[in-house]
């Protein structure tokens, strides 16, 4: 393993001048051979550098907890696409194309990602053409008995907007295309020149159900850039909050999956138990979604001993109720019959697409940032990583439950041994001309934040990769050759973020 990447650790910062600048050809070769060796692309993005555009690629090598970064300078508005040999790049290339007007030659599916305005122009790029949301060259299957089903952006429930096109032969889905961008709020553009007061609030709402996951990655970046240290107690409280977030969302998903197969007892119990976990987050910081808890340098709220006790006993009660509610699923043959074999994503497909989180683990990929690139409390306190083999809705359901069990134990353990007294250290100015990388394992999977600073220590580019960015294509593949009536169930089993993707 002698790659030309600059190696760094999760939550690390390096001077931008140390990041290897490779020729276009070397850069591409390094991606391809790195991926062949077992590296995985966690982020690939552009940033303006004077009149030119610099591409950064960030890869992870889990068995050595290493992150590698390298860059190349584009002087023309086109670059070769690697999608044919490295499929996990497919959306990253489209994203760079949309954000900077670069065309990736040979990309089989070069379409808009979010129908957003450009962040800048690559040298020589054609002027930006206004894109109209949802107007693109949708893939079509032709044939006498083929029909197309178009759904969204406005869906039937209280759900974020997105557009889904199914190519069907009778009930069978030959292909599903997912076209997003409706939620685009311009988060990345708003971070430029920061951090300012509202940057942290925007991070809390990148994906509002993953407040802790995203604010943690953001705080780690600010801490890395300024050299701030976080008190041990704050690390533990952050870990507790991250696992509570996982518990609340997994519980909601377990209920929603039960609801979608028409099994109402678990659906209604879990709907209520999810609230019990959210209320525990509110017990810590006043907000059911963890707003206001994580700040660069530590956390805003301490857990005094009565509060620890109160949270502990309510957690145990909610955990018992959850075990009882979820246990019904495994004992009910009609539920199992609907979950097993539905929406299969093979291990190879998951690997090729670079899936992350529970969806990846359900297909047999053993990856979890908490173990592979441990951060904060997870460097001291490990959680076992659960995987399944079948890659179907059942596996994605089972993984959620197993992760709930582990999170419950983890929180109890942390509550019993909260260290130290300080919860927040002061944070100085961010270093100038630096690059910082932070990854966390949110409940949907890997969250990656990369910060680049200018000569004054302000963000010149802030790149966020939500786990949903990796996983939406997994949902499309889960539907392939399945029944269109299985879509809601498959969708719930992934439960991906629209705004996290659309930013």
């Amino acid at each position, binding site marked *: 393993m002698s790659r030309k990447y600059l190696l760094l650790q999760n939550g690390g910062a390096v001077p931008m001048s140390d990041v290897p600048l490779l020729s276009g050809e070397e850069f591409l070769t390094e991606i391809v051979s790195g991926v062949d060796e077992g590296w995985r692309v966690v982020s690939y993005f552009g940033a303006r550098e004077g009149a030119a555009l610099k591409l950064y690629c960030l890869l992870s090598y889990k068995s050595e907890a290493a992150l590698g970064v390298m860059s190349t300078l584009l002087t023309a508005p086109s670059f070769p696409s690697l999608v044919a040999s490295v499929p996990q790049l497919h959306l990253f290339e489209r994203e760079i194309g949309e954000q900077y007007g670069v065309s990736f030659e040979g990309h089989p599916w070069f379409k808009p990602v979010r129908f957003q305005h450009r962040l800048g122009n690559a040298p020589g790029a054609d002027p930006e053409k206004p894109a109209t949301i949802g107007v693109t060259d949708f893939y079509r299957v032709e044939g006498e008995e083929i029909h197309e089903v178009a759904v969204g952006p406005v869906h039937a429930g*209280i759900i974020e907007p997105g557009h889904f096109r199914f190519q069907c032969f009778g009930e069978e889905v030959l292909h599903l295309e997912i076209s997003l961008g409706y939620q685009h*709020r311009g988060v990345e*553009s708003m971070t430029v020149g920061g951090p300012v007061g*509202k940057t942290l609030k925007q991070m809390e709402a990148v994906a*509002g159900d993953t407040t802790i996951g995203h604010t943690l990655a953001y705080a780690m970046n600010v801490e890395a850039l300024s050299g701030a240290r976080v008190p041990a107690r704050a690390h533990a409280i952050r870990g507790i909050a991250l696992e509570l977030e996982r518990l609340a969302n997994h519980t909601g998903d377990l209920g929603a999956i039960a609801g979608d197969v028409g099994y109402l007892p678990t659906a209604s119990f879990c709907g209520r138990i999810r609230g019990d976990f959210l209320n525990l987050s509110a017990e810590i910081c006043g907000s059911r979604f963890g707003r206001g808890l994580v700040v660069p340098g530590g956390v805003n709220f301490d857990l005094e001993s009565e509060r620890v006790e109160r949270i502990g006993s309510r957690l145990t009660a909610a955990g018992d109720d959850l075990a009882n509610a979820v246990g019904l699923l495994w004992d009910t043959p009609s539920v199992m019959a609907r979950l097993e074999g539905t929406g299969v994503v093979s291990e190879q497909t998951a690997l090729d697409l670079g899936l992350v989180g529970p969806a990846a683990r359900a297909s047999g990929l053993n990856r979890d940032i908490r173990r592979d690139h441990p951060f904060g409390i997870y460097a001291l306190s490990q959680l076992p990583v659960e995987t399944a083999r079948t890659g179907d809705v059942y596996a994605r359901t089972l993984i959620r439950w197993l992760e709930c069990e582990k999170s419950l134990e983890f929180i109890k353990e942390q509550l019993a041994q909260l260290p130290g007294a300080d919860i927040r250290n002061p944070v100085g100015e961010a270093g100038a001309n630096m690059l910082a990388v932070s990854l966390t394992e949110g409940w949907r999977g890997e969250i990656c934040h990369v910060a680049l600073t200018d000569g004054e220590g302000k963000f010149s580019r802030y790149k966020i990769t939500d786990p949903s960015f990796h996983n939406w294509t997994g949902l499309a593949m889960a539907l392939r050759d399945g029944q269109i009536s299985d879509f809601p169930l498959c969708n719930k089993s992934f439960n991906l973020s629209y705004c996290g993707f659309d930013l």
Partner: protein
Amino acid sequence: MIKAILARIKQGHRTMRYPKEPLPLPDRLRGFPELNRPSCPPNCRLCADACPVGAIDCSAGLSVDLGKCLFCPDCVDACPHGGIKYTNDARLAANRREDLVVKGGEERRLAQALDAKMLKLFGRSLKFRSVVAGGCNGCEADTNVLATVGWDIGRFGLQFVASPRHADALWVTGPVTANMREALLLTYEAIPAPKLVIACGACAINGGPFIGSPEHNDGLGDLLPVDLYIPGCPPHPLTILDGLLRLLDRIDK
């Protein structure tokens, strides 16, 4: 089957009693702010400067715009004089945008009931069509929770429905992104008149944490006539339920 029945007995009846009985809320919940203007030194604007979204105005007395407020702890942390304190009172919804601006010592201006004609139409059955227009899934999650057994808004005749044709009101979350603007307006048009509009959460009211981004409308603004503003980032489910019950004249205190 027997296991499901036993589980049903174990899980018990868990629907909260609000509004018949108050709902206990966490002590740290940041709800209605208590302003203590007399404690402010002259020309002090520490809280206003600390507010990330410009919700606090110190120019003429001290006021907090709950429509912009994210209910974060920044102003309280910045003020050494005790000028602002959050209470855990989650009743916040109002009918008019200006009613969301809180000044110290003023009477609360909580949402008022609809007029008699509208109450006759909607008082016992009000159906919503939700449109998420850039919401982060925080408001959406805590709106969804109202349909769970814990809150069970069905008991008040309230329900979220799948089609705008079946709806009486449009439920808006998110800052109204450019990419959702058309879908939002089309959905509004598709709801039969007379109809209501509810702006749920800081984003829908005034852009929330994303205030000032050119990629959206900073909330509903003048785009549609709003009948109920529900502040919060996201609003606590009780803030939502309380606002709705006031609108339908089910709570009068």
